[in-house]
Structure formats: C-alpha cells, structure tokens
C-alpha cells in the first residue's frame, strides 16, 4: 500500500522543474520533502495529483498506475492535497469549505439530492457530523460561520488541511501547511498529522520549518533544482554539509 513515484521528470518549456525524482510513501508514514525554493517540491505534488503532466516516469498508487488518470480521478482514488497558496472561495464559510471536501464520498445521485430523499438527507447529516468533528479537531469550530475572506491567513491554511482530511484520503499531500501558523497551532497541526498517520494515512509533507520536520517525519527527501540530492532520516540529513549549505544556511549551524 504505497504511492510510488519513479523517475518522474516534469518540464515546462525550457525549465526542468523535476528530474528523475523517485520516492515511496507508505501508508501510515510521514514523509517530508524539503529543498530550496524552486527545487520542484510543489511540482512533485502536481505530478502525483495529475495537475502537471510528467514528461517521463510513473506514478503508482496502491499498485495501480495512475499516470493516465485525470486529476479528479486521482483524488477519488484517495490522494488528497492542499495547495501552497491556499485556494478558496472568499465568500464561502469555513463550514461549507470543509463540507466541500466530502464530495468524493458522495453516494447519492443528483436526482436524489434534488428530491432530498431520506438517504440523501442521511448522508448530508453524516457529512455534517463528520465536518463538526474535523472542525473540533483543528480548533476551528468557533469560526464555522465566518467567511474565508475574513479569516487570517494562518487559519485559512488550517481550513485547507481540514478540507483535505474530510476527503478521507489514503494519502494526503500537504504543501507547507504550517507556514504562518503560531507555535501552538503548529503543535496542534503536528498532532493532527500524527493522528492521520496512526489511522493509516500516508502523509507527504513539504515544509520549510526543519524543526517541525524533525519532530514529525521518519524520512526526508531533499530536492535540489529538480533532482534528488539525498534522502534519509531527519537527523542524518541535518548533519549533511551539502544540505546545510544549500538549504538550511545559518539556521543549520
């Protein structure tokens, strides 16, 4: 039960954003991807979720090759993601934004939704209950009826995470979820990620806060200019001089 990315190369015109990147994400594990700006981390996410077209390489999810699947089917296949720059409808309330995450779990037909048959109503209620749980977990319940545009940036990111969690994915890809979060919220988020992992969800994490990675991830992949620089446990990587020079800078010393 893994996501296997093999030798994926992504090019945009003249720019090679990702070159022969490979990694394996197991369910129940937290894997971190780090690298300098523009090293291809988000592109890797896009390649996995089908939002960027790889020029070469394969993506296998749970033993099924998904290279040819369109993005929405990959999500339905159990790969949820957040975006580095949060994407949301500013007019929508927090609660509704999270409710949107349940789309792939929907079993009722449009006809049933129109008529609001008992089963459709029951499903809606199930979603709503689950939504409340998720909001509670991420301490967002107090803001459920606020519009997204009225939220401070940090909270927006949490809502994005909540939305991906609502998807009940097998794998969750988080692109800098902790950026702009206060320390206690970062703690809460790490807690949530661990819980996800314990429940058997594979977590792929892009993060520039290396302390957080140290705390969470068992394995780290380092990208540089699109290629894999090295990989290993956070500790070994943090000692690597090349990594310190290109990525951590003075914070690593």
């Amino acid at each position, binding site marked *: 039960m893994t996501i296997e990315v093999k030798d994926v190369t992504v090019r945009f015109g003249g720019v090679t954003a990702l070159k022969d990147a490979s990694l394996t994400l197991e369910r129940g594990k937290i894997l971190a991807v780090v690298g300098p700006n523009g090293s291809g981390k988000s592109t890797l996410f896009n390649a996995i979720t089908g939002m960027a077209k790889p020029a070469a390489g394969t993506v296998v999810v749970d033993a099924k090759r998904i290279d040819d699947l369109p993005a929405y089917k990959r999500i339905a296949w159990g790969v949820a993601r957040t975006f580095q720059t949060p994407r949301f409808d500013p007019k929508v*309330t927090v609660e*509704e934004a999270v409710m949107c995450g349940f789309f792939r779990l929907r079993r009722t037909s449009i006809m049933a*939704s129109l008529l609001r048959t008992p089963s459709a109503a029951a499903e809606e209620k199930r979603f709503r209950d689950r939504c409340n749980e998720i909001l509670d977990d991420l301490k967002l319940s107090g803001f459920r009826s606020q*519009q997204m545009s009225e939220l401070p940036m940090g909270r927006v990111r949490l809502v994005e995470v909540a939305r991906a969690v609502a998807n009940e994915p097998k794998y969750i890809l988080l692109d800098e979820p902790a950026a702009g979060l206060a320390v206690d919220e970062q703690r809460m988020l790490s807690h949530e990620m661990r819980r996800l992992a314990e429940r058997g969800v594979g977590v792929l994490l892009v993060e520039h806060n290396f302390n957080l990675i140290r705390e969470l991830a068992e394995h780290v992949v380092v990208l540089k200019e699109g290629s894999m620089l090295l990989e290993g446990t956070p500790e070994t990587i943090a000692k690597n001089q090349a990594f310190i020079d290109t990525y951590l800078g003075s914070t690593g010393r």
Partner: protein
Amino acid sequence: MQGSRLKLLMPAFSVIVVIALISPFIFSSPFWLDNSVLVAIFSLMALSMGMAYGQAGILSIAPAAFASIGAFATSVVTTRYGLSPLVGLVLALVLPMVLAYPMARAITRLSPLPLSIATLLLSLVLELAIREGGDFTGGYIGLSGIPTLWFAPNLFSMHVLGWLLVALVLVLYVNLTNSAVGRAVRTARHDPLRATADGVHVPSLLAVYFALSASVAGLAGWLYAHHLTYMGPDSLTMHVSIKIMLMAVIGGASTFLGPILGAAFLTLITLYLPAAETQGMIFGAVLILVLLVTPNGVLGTDWLAFFHGKKRKSDVARVQPAVGGGAA
C-alpha cells in the same frame, strides 16, 4: 444551521404565502392574474438564470432560448400531432437538457465574459434554427392555436399552477444547493482547480448543472406556450434573455428568492413606464440606479449593514451563502 427540512422549505413556503395573500385581491381581475402568470413564467426563467449564474457562475444569455425550445416542443406536439400537453411537458424538460449539456461541455472552461458571449451565440443560432424550421416550427410565422391546459382552464388556475411550479422548482433548487453537488458547483465556479482537488470532474458537473438550469427554463417555456397559446420565433429571443439576466441580478442572482423578486419588478415596471420612445431611457436609468444602490441585488445586499454601517455585530449579520441568503 443544520439544514433542517423546515429551513430548506422556507423559500418555497414564503413564495406560497405571499401568493396566497395576494390571490384574494387579484382573484377577480384577469389583468392582474395575467400579469401574475407572466411573472411566474419569468420567475422560472430567472431561477434558471440564478442556477446558471448565481450558483455555477455561467452568465448565460440563453435561458430564453432554452425556454423557446421547451415552448416549441410542446407547441409542435400539441398542434401538429394533437398529443397531450403532458407529453409536451416531458419534451420541454428533456430537450433543453439534451442541448445544454454538450454545449456546456464545450464552453464551460472559458472565462466568464467569453462564456456569456458563447451562450449568446448559441441563443442566436437557435433563433435562426427555429426560423429555418419551416412548417415544423411554423418558420417565421410561428405556431398559433396552442391548446390551453385542460387541468388549468382559466386564468386563475394558470396563476395557481404557475406559482406551484415556481414553488416546486424552488424546493428542488434549495435541496440541490444544499447538497454536495451544490457545494461542488459553487467551488468549481470560483476555482475549477480547487474543485478538482476535491475530486470533482468540473466540466461534467458544470454541464449537468447547466443542463438542469436549462430544463427549468424549458419548463417556463412550456407554461409560456400554453398560457399565450401562440409561439413565434421572436417570442423568446435573446432580448428576453437579457431581461431575464437583469431580473436575476437585480433581485440577487445567488439568492433563492432574488430572481423571483427581480422578475416581478421588471415585469411590472413596464406597466408604469410611458408607452413611448422614451421608455428605454427611463428603463436604462432605473436599471443603473438600482445597480448603483444594490450591486449585489436586492436580496443579496445586507440591508441592515447598508443602513447602519458598522453597528451590527459580525456574527449575526453574515449572510449564509449555504442557503444563498435567500431566507430574507
């Protein structure tokens, strides 16, 4: 907050209450009954516009064209083949869908303004197709002698039927809006990629939704044909579509009751405008004024905040987009 059944029925219920209150006063006035039926017909079209634009973000200049298909469908089967208007009803609901779906698949990825131009083009082509339909559609002359509905033989029963249909559509519309599909459509409207990341196949979802809205317009067309008993190529033209668009926007396109309010306002206002060349000047000026005062439509505007500025507390005042703010 819990989308309880009662809450979901509110918009339709309020329509029925208002109509029930009005009915005794207009019961004996065929003039007002006639206007009421027309308002109901335009309300249906405006609701179709509300679905397409207010929810899915497709500013369609084609609702009248879809209504026209519905109207011609029922006109042709009832006058040419002597079939029951109920057969016409089925066709009026289905044909617009069948046409709207592929068309929406082709164009929903356009940005809003080109998208509305594309619907405008479609609407013009449909008008031409109806004209070229020869004897089948009555060509340039149109079809007269469309039977009235046997189950709604007089104006009052048409009035009741019209508003029942509006209420019915409202119920379905509210249900759909408060479902996963409704939410996905709203997301897709704002950011297709975001919706994709929720697992939505955006083109097909938008197309299905647009087809549903076209079907509502078709229903309006069905009612129109059997109410006026004449259907011509210039009965439901692009100009009507533009009026419908104005109705929806003035009332508040993303609310449930806004389009109905807008339909009533724009339909009745012509009664009080002078019958002269200057009518357009007054109409245009009124339109601009209304837009200037309530850019989000009458029901889309937070009136308390509008008048009291910052006096309101934030949590009370927030319009609930989940139910389209239509509970007002």
